[in-house]
């Protein structure tokens, strides 16, 4: 408008001068100016009929005529289901060897072409063991023979490197498995007791890990641990823009997932969480539990807890077992107390149910 006034002002002035050519000159100016304005301003945003509503961090309710960009309070329609992964333990195909030892066979297929929706509307090329990040949780009892038939269907070389005790040739470092169907059979005696990671060990190692080629390997003691509601949490991150910094953090890959899908547990029931930190780039990660403290068993190798705390800090592939019971019902947060990570997705809720009959999950029977 102001420009138009200015032009009008000039025009009236020039009318007094009464020169045709000056008017012409002005009209050239006006045309340039007006067309510049039209090109420059963002097109008007047309209002729509339907309104969406979302809640902010501070609890305010905001209305919008557009779409909600909200990884926090809207659920992702992601293919990978962290709730299913949480309590999914794979005991393998079981058979007995001649000497009576239990043999557990697993088939693990590596791929590196999967595009996964990792957060609402954000798609990322993850590299996977058996199609998910993290890969399947492999579980055996101490002394069992673990046999993993590994097939590499990816376009790059991959291996499986288990943390634990095994012969050198089963370490998955020097025995590179070729792309496009390469095979290798890892076989070793399960041990020691505890919770261990497994991951690809092909260079560039950082890339092969952060893209998703890792999972959890649990070795149970022969004399079983007390019955509990057991779950696995892999603390991980995703570097979406390849700048050497994680854009997302999570327990079990999907940011904020357990915040809008709280993990249901029962009052006074023992909960056992197998926690493995697979975050790269950042030197530490941690787990803080609200309204409670947990017994912590580093690496799960000892049956006596080393700490009774609500905060444990973990470095790369550091892991342990956390055991706790809730005395009071309600919603309790758990998250990284490196709160940058929790603001980028590593945050969840335990919903403690008062009534035993309300229990949604079946506690997995130990050591089947």
């Amino acid at each position, binding site marked *: 408008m102001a420009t138009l006034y200015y032009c009008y*002002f000039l025009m009236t002035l020039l009318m007094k001068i*009464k*020169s045709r050519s000056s008017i012409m000159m002005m009209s050239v100016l006006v045309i340039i100016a007006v067309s*510049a304005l039209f090109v420059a301003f963002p097109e008007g945003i047309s209002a729509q009929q339907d309104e969406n509503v979302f809640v902010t961090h*501070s609890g305010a309710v905001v209305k919008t005529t557009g*779409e909600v960009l909200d990884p926090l309070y809207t659920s992702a329609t992601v293919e990978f289901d962290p709730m299913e992964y949480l309590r999914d333990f794979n005991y393998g195909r079981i058979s007995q060897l001649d000497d009576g030892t239990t043999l557990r066979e697993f088939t693990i297929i590596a791929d590196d072409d999967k595009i996964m929706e990792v957060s609402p509307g*954000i798609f990322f090329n993850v590299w996977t063991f058996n199609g998910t990040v993290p890969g399947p949780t492999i579980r055996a009892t101490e002394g069992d023979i673990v046999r993993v038939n590994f097939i590499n269907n990816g376009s790059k070389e991959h291996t499986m490197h288990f943390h634990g005790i095994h012969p050198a040739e089963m370490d998955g470092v020097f025995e590179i498995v070729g792309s496009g169907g390469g095979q290798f059979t890892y076989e070793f005696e399960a041990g020691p007791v505890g919770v261990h990671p497994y991951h690809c060990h092909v260079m560039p190692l950082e890339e092969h890990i952060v893209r998703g080629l890792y999972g959890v390997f649990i070795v149970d003691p022969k004399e079983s641990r007390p019955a509990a509601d057991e779950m696995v949490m892999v603390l991980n991150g995703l570097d979406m823009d390849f700048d050497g910094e994680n854009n997302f953090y999570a327990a079990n890959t999907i940011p904020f997932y357990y915040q809008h899908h709280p993990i249901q547990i029962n009052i006074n029931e023992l909960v056992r969480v197998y926690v493995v930190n697979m975050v790269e780039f950042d030197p530490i990660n941690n787990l803080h539990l609200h309204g409670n403290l947990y017994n912590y068993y580093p690496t799960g190798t000892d049956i006596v807890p080393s700490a009774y705390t609500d905060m444990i800090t973990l470095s790369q592939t550091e892991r342990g077992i956390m055991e706790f019971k809730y005395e009071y019902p309600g919603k309790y947060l758990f998250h990284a107390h490196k709160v940058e990570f929790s603001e980028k997705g590593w945050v969840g809720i335990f919903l403690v149910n008062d009534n035993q009959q309300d229990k949604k999950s079946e506690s997995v029977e130990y050591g089947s």
Partner: protein
Amino acid sequence: MEVNNKSSKGKMIASGVIPFVFLIILIAYIFGPGSELLDLGVPLPEVTMEKVDFLDSEIQVTVRNTGPIPVEVAMADINDRIQPAAVEPDRYLERYETALVRIPFEWNEAEPYRIGITIEDGTRFEKEIEAAAPALEPSLELLGFFAIIGTYVGIIPVMIGLLWLPFIRRISKQKYHFFLALTAGLLLFLGIDSVEEALEVSDESLAGSFNGVLLVATVLILSFLGLYYTGEKLVSRVKSSRITKPVAIALMISIGIGLHNFGEGLAIGAAVGLGSIAFSTFLIIGFALHNTTEGIAIASPLSREKKVIGKLVAMGLIAGAPAIFGAWIGGFVYSPFTSVVFLSIGAGAIFQVIITILKWIREEGDKNLSSAAVASGFAIGMVIMYLTSILV
């Protein structure tokens, strides 16, 4: 004969059109459906955050898709921390399409913020704001504030500069040429200043796909040519109208300066709007001193005229008032593209005026631009502007 004429005309049109036809076929072949010729490389998405407004408990970001492919806005963050947000009208952005991302956030005034937008492939784009300042809502009070600022930096200094007219009037022809050359020097500085400013804005806020430098060059040259043509017409017709050649030149100068001051006003308004300027009295004094010299530029050609007071006031307004309009537009509806365009138009106008003045000195004087008066005037003009610009 007629038939012959017609057929030759037809041939002429055909010969003009045929290359176009081939060109269209070529483009269709390369880009058309089924063509895999150019299926090489990976087009990288790009979005540009053109504008960030800090409202009550909310940060609003105008996002434009400035890349070669459509994108989807997927996530927003403040200082690299994910925030719930909304995108209006929707998250799908075609090339050059814009959307408004609304991020509810309890921000603190005068603190720096980094605004991040993540698109569907996980690429994150960031814009840094030096100091958050409440978005300006058009109000009469603010309108008045900008008018006052514009008056201080635009109108009053130019008018003061015009007061040198009686002085310039009493001096010899030599000294008069000195002042005309001084004017040209002042203007050359202003022109370079405008170009620099335009390049700076395009570098900071304009997406690469706008080809900032070439946009400035194109608009500048169009503005120069447009004004040069109309200016020549104006000057050549002075005999048939009431205005004389000096008046015509002074008018051209004031329009050129007006366009420049409009750009200056835009910059001031935008700076206030974006919170990156603390408006001190010192700054206003700097602008005022700097702009006083613009008054001399207008006064010089008019010094050989009589009964000029009315014209002088009018021209002072033409040169100075746009600062007010610029401040309004810059403060309320800022867009970096508009800024760049206006600054370039201003620069083109100023360069045209310089040519006009030099030509006039040459005709008036002894067909000579290398006299001591002209050379020293030009040089001193540049130096004065440089020194006063340090104050801004």
